[in-house]
């Protein structure tokens, strides 16, 4: 049911604005931090200038707003069902989360989109490259599962 709902909402989003994608949420967050810390960088580097002006910036901004909306929507849903709880990670989990995030950023850069962008948007749009990205994500996920199992077995043996 949720799968059908996601497909339908994504289609409405494509029809009126653009399909759902989230990678730009992170890019906009980085550009905002960069602008606050080093405002001159935007004018200094042509790549950053082109990302913060014109069509590119409009697309980035819209996707970033979708990302912020996702957090708000999740917060509303969690709060209204009593599922909102601040959960502090243990040290190992904190390190894995950050390192996992950095690996995801490298993958995002190479595959030109995240899992949502490739699997839920580009694949339904029948973009050829998304097939390779989707297969890669599945293979990487499998390797990740095996790695996590190995990690937990190592912890138990200690």
């Amino acid at each position: 049911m949720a799968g059908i709902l996601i497909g339908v909402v994504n289609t409405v989003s494509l029809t009126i604005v653009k399909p759902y994608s989230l990678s730009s949420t992170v890019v906009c967050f980085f550009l905002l931090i960069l602008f606050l810390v080093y405002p001159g960088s935007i004018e200094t580097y042509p790549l950053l200038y082109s990302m913060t002006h014109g069509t590119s910036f409009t697309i980035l901004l819209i996707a970033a707003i979708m990302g912020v909306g996702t957090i708000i929507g999740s917060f509303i849903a969690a709060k209204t069902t009593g599922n909102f709880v601040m959960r502090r990670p243990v040290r190992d989990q904190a390190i894995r989360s950050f390192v996992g995030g950095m690996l995801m950023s490298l993958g995002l850069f190479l595959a030109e989109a995240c899992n949502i962008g490739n699997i839920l948007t580009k694949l339904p749009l029948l973009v050829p490259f998304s097939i390779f990205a989707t297969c890669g994500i599945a293979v990487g996920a499998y390797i990740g599962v095996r790695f996590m199992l190995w990690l937990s077995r190592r912890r138990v043996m200690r």
Partner: protein
Amino acid sequence: MVILTISIIALVTGIIFGVIFQRSQLDMSLAFNEAFTFKSPKRLMGIIVAVLTATILFSFVIYAGAVRNLNLLIGIGIDPIMVYTAHAPSLTPVIIFVGGIIFGFGMLLAGGGLAGTLFRIGEGYLASILTFLGIGAGVGLMLLLAAIQGAPMERLPGETIPEMLAIDPILIVLVFSALYLALIFLIKKFGTR
């Protein structure tokens, strides 16, 4: 005014997705983990259903002209489909496949994909904030390196599969839909305990 309207619609879309993801807990990392570890592919099948639904409906709204007539971005001169078909000049299938592997591995390590990270931030998971910061740090580093090296933001226009093969899109949609249904059938038959 149009940009404001687009921004509000984007925010509402994001909120709706946030609610759906939180209520269904449909996260790809969890889906793959359950399917590979516990042979419980329910979540994974939900994702395939989402892709199947979108494949059929996307083609319908594109080729019926709904996107051309109703899309607000097209109204201000931006093609929302070309945004996704365009790619960097140096991109090859191998690079994308390897990028996907790295992303998939990182996703499992972090305990959530990008949507999973964002909706878990909304649930109060502080670990997901660290994941987001990790993604931000990595993206920032690579963008800065590219910017300092003087990399231009060059994008080559791309094609969809029907355009590439010069085949009626309905045929391609039917083939892909059949593939997804076959995948669901195979997973149900062989992928469960």
